[in-house]
């Protein structure tokens, strides 16, 4: 099987999953108690105007007709309109997704750079002092609510020490957004050589990224440790030791065999993190997709909720395919058939 046919097969398998998720979300928002018609109409609306709002939104039609229309539009890349802002949902997401991804990607990079080495080191001497401490820190990371630690950090670093800028978005008010290349203000401003904007973007990013990377690192430490312990207890590592190879060489062999499962684990975490980043966005007024999605759920903005969940699902599917391809590259044993 070639890489191309592998990709094609994966893409075909993806369709029923996405369809299922779309249908479930569609049903979930509609069976609920939230009534956008009453919300849009306001308390003073009479029967006739409520009925006309309902017809305008297409909510007077039978459920499956509504779903059919939604799917038909979806195929053409139309995610419907948001009822709060009357903007197109696809545009809203396109404008906000880069902000969320910027936060997510920097945090995952930082969290992995810290978490993976700590987990590996922990596994070297299980139940040693380093291991005990790192296991406790990891459990603490599991237990600390993102939003609370963010509030505390804002108090310390913005209010008390005044090291961090006001938690009010991605750039200082005085700075202009750089020309759009990657969607990350920091990278784009560096590319265009706009140093003051880059500085502003970096200082706005620092605190949320550091905080979120704590949340990211906790499960990575735990699983890297478990994966590494398993590899170290394997027959081939024992064989390598029995051969009298130097500890450094043995560690290298173990590391090479740990990388792919660790990478796969980080991949499985990403979708959940893209959802979880919304809490950080909320507190730092980041203006990303997560913050917008949370708001849509609260307000019962059906099309926006559907779009948000669909993007999360597509993201998770895309991440899995990328991870599979990476594993293929890194792991000579893996075959396309598996």
């Amino acid at each position, binding site marked *: 099987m070639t890489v191309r046919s592998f990709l094609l097969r994966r893409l075909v398998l993806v369709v029923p999953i996405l369809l299922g998720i779309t249908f479930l979300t569609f049903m979930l928002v509609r069976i609920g108690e*939230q009534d956008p018609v009453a919300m849009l109409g306001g308390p003073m609306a009479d029967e006739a105007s409520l009925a006309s709002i309902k017809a305008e939104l297409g909510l007077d039609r039978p459920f499956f007709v509504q779903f059919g229309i939604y799917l038909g539009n979806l195929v053409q890349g139309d995610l419907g309109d948001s009822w709060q802002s009357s903007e197109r949902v696809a545009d809203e997401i396109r404008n906000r997704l880069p902000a969320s991804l910027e936060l997510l990607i920097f945090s995952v990079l930082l969290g992995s750079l810290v978490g993976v080495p700590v987990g590996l080191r922990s596994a070297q001497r*299980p*139940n040693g002092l380093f291991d005990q401490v790192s296991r406790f820190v990891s459990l603490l990371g*599991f237990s600390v*609510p993102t939003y*609370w630690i963010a509030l505390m950090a*804002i108090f310390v670093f913005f209010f008390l020490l005044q090291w961090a800028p006001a938690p009010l978005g991605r750039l200082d008010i005085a700075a202009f957004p750089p020309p759009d290349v990657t969607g990350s203000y920091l990278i784009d401003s560096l590319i265009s050589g706009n140093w003051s904007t880059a500085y502003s973007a970096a200082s706005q990013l620092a605190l949320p990224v550091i905080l979120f990377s704590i949340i990211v690192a906790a499960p990575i430490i735990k699983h890297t440790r478990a994966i590494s312990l398993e590899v170290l207890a394997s027959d081939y590592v024992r064989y390598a030791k029995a051969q009298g190879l130097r500890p450094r060489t043995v560690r290298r062999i173990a590391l090479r065999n740990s990388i792919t499962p660790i990478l796969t684990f980080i991949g499985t975490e990403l979708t959940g993190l893209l*959802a979880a980043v919304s809490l950080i966005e909320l507190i730092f007024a980041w203006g990303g997709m997560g913050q917008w999605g949370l708001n849509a759920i609260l307000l019962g903005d059906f099309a926006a909720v559907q779009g948000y969940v669909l993007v999360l699902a597509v993201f998770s599917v895309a991440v899995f395919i990328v991870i599979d391809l990476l594993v293929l590259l890194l792991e000579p044993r893996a075959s396309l058939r598996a």
Partner: protein
Amino acid sequence: MTDVAVDKSAAPAFTGIGRVLGVARRSPTFAIGFAIVLVFALMAIFADVIAPYGPIETFARQVLTPPGAEFWFGADGNGMDVFSRVMYGARYAFGIAVPAAIIMLVIGVPLGLVAGYKGGMLDEIVLRLMDVLRSFPSIVLALAVVAATGQSLVNVVLVIGFLDAPIFARLVRSEVLGLRSSGFVESAVAAGNPTWRILFVHLLPNSIKGATAMIAVRMAWAVRISATLAFIGVGIQAPTPEWGAMIRQGSEFIISGEWWVALFPGVALVGVVLGFNLLGDGMQDLLDPRRKATGK
């Protein structure tokens, strides 16, 4: 901790206090977690005794008083005593986690037993359900379901319980799959036991181990996610003395420097969640001594 094997063989001989100490020695993690959870449980039970004021008693002149002799944890924006509210908040943490855990078990365990033992359609359905639930990030799913089904404490408990039930179903199912064709089950069938007896008398005690270790971890999750929902403003609303809702109230005072409104409920929240997590982690060590010793 080097004599894990010795402890294991000696464990059944422990009784009373000796047994407690034995457990504590074999897994300090478990002991610390248990102690923390116990403290918070006592706090929940005796909240009305410990708290100097009522949870929603207001002192209009004392709005945003910093922590001091009169209000140990300060007063919040409504002039309510933060210390008293944190104490009462423990009742919400346990009031959500305990019934949610019961729902998870009552739905998940029988489902896993039957799915694993009978296989076929039901098994297929449980597995697919698990796949779908896993593909949704839990926070988005919980938020959407609570927002859609109506915002009340009961709904929060139900949603958390239902969302986690498949985890227990899957755990029990995989155990049952391995036991299905073992000697004791086959002789039970041969002796003419009805299916329900095989499931609940013979298979249940042998397949519940993994699930018991998981309970504490999922209770930690239940406390966390319910507080997160309340923080976002879904489910439990202020002025209910629930920790997440209290942090939400405190969030507006952070930039102006009134830190105590958000700090103390958060500390309590971290404490109880950490307690449950330590308890769960320690329980897994105790039930599976190999897990801890791997790599030695």
